[in-house]
């Protein structure tokens, strides 16, 4: 039985009675694209550029059709520090909202469950997200949304997720291009940590660390497979990311439907060997997406033209792409 997320609410009552077995159907359909995965790299010199035009170009290049779909935009908003660039810039979020609305999506929401800080609205305020028109009507605090259990998550019998994320037809990972002191890099796939509700698992979402960071990244991306990635690499973060690193201008947006392919491309741009990033190895081994360069159809800018090596902490020096 295949259950689409949009079928979720009409079936919710039956689902509560029958358990959550239907979700397995969603996960079993996860396979890497048969052919090469298109990944679009577009230059943007600053957040003042016409980002909507670039995102529209990226969406079209990837052949994404969102008409009549419920779209959830998932930015990276783990916490806020005015001295660095932890979060997906508000300009990228606003532009993505504009594009998906213009493309005929039935609903476009913005949702995030920050991993460290309790006061979600304070973070969205500090990150200037509330400058987006009617933001409070569009935003869902995924840490405190109503939840439903999904059966099997790594070695756990079940995992709870926000209903807003489960019922979305498309989750758009609006990630930030950053190094990560545990995972090596945090890009579109790890951004899904914010889909795990703090109200159930706490702040931080320590359950994911106990399961294993790479394992959790892969599992989250199996569950939320109907996804699209837009990585904010206009200004990324190098060094001791994802919180205490240093701003790193790269001046690109990286987009695609195959999230492992997008993340692998971002790694190459950052001067990181994606084959040495454990979650990407697991994603490739699990047939979740394409990671090898030969299986990625690069569109827009060539990697060699935008590559800029990100500073790596000592323990990750070995990740450097030759």
């Amino acid at each position, binding site marked *: 039985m295949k259950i689409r997320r949009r079928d979720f609410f009409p079936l919710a009552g039956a689902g509560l009675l029958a358990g959550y077995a239907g979700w397995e159907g969603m996960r079993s359909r996860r396979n890497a694209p048969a052919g090469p995965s298109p990944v679009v790299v577009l230059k943007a010199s600053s957040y003042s550029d016409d980002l909507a035009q670039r995102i529209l170009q990226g969406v079209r290049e990837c052949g994404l059709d969102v008409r009549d779909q419920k779209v959830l935009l998932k930015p990276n908003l783990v916490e806020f520090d005015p001295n660095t660039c932890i979060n997906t810039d508000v300009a990228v979020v606003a532009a993505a909202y504009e594009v998906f609305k213009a493309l005929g999506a039935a609903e476009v929401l913005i949702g995030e469950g920050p991993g460290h800080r309790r006061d979600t609205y304070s973070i969205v*305020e500090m990150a200037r997200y509330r400058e987006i028109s009617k933001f409070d009507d569009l935003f869902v605090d995924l840490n405190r949304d109503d939840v439903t259990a999904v059966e099997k998550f790594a070695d756990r019998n079940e995992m709870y997720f926000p209903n807003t994320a489960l019922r979305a037809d498309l989750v758009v990972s609006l990630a930030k291009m950053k190094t990560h002191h545990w995972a090596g890099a945090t890009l579109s796939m790890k951004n899904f940590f914010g889909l795990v509700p703090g109200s*159930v698992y706490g702040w931080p979402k*320590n*359950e994911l660390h106990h399961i294993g960071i790479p394992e959790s990244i892969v599992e989250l991306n199996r569950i939320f497979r109907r996804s699209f990635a837009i990585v904010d690499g206009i200004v990324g973060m190098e060094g001791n990311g994802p919180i205490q690193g240093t701003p790193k201008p790269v001046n690109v947006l990286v987009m695609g439907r195959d999230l492992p392919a997008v993340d692998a491309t971002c790694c190459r741009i950052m001067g990181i060997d994606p084959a040495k990033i454990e979650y990407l190895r697991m994603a490739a081994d699990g047939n979740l997406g394409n990671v090898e360069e030969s299986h990625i159809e690069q569109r827009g800018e060539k990697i060699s033209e935008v590559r800029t090596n990100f500073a790596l902490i000592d323990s990750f020096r070995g990740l450097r792409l030759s």
Partner: protein
Amino acid sequence: MADSFLGVRLDILRRSQNPDGGWSYYTGKQSWLEPTFYGALVLHGDPAADRAWALIKSWQQPDGSWPPTAGAAISGWGTALCLTLAHIRGEVDGSFLKGLAYLLKTAGTESELWRRALAKIGLIDPGRNLSLKGWPWKEGTSSWVEPTAHTLIALKKAYALLPAPELTERIHSGEALLLDVRCKDGGWNYGSPWTLGEDQRSYPETTALALLGLQGRAEAASSVDLAKSWLRDTPSSMARAWITIALRLHGVAVPDTTSPAKGSGSPDLTVVALEALGAPEGNYRLLKTEKA
């Protein structure tokens, strides 16, 4: 009263109570334990609080713990909130003792014997004292500041009725754990004062919660000044509410920031309840604990 800082918030809470007696985080959603706990504290003595308690009590799980919301088969930190509320309501019965037993048997996994052994022979550097036992958000994970602080409040209240050595031991160990994970700047974040050798900054809301858990401990005094500065500077209405409650319980005069009586600006009902709790005439005293 109706137009006062507290009155506005009481009105919001009364109007937003769900038909089942609980509160959601945001109006129109399902009832959750955390906002229901704070709603019941704010309206303590009101029939609305009785309805909230009746709902919460019905959620207790066979192992004595409470889940974060109805039907979520997760044992965890909300148990401490329920014991605190039960004590405040004078409902110390079999259900309370079962919950207490659950908290006493639960500890963060970092204090497990094998981890302590690895740390002792130098194979891991946890950067903290693994012999200290705190509490996790969810059973089977590590200890963190917030669940430890909440459990200390619950256990200290229980200790006033049941002065058992097991309680004293866990209270002292939990307090020591909080002090052990205090950040270099004098406050607390979620419970990780450093990562990969770099000091981490503290947060206002978790600093306030740690201070609540450390009521009666002289070592907490040095963090009170930081909390006072947070009260002035933080843009977070949730953090301001928590700091106000913590400072009042530490006997610090808190400047009157309760006018105008407009809403908090946050649609989170937990923030509304915390602001009401910390109002000068609010029920913050219900979270007062004595030294064990």
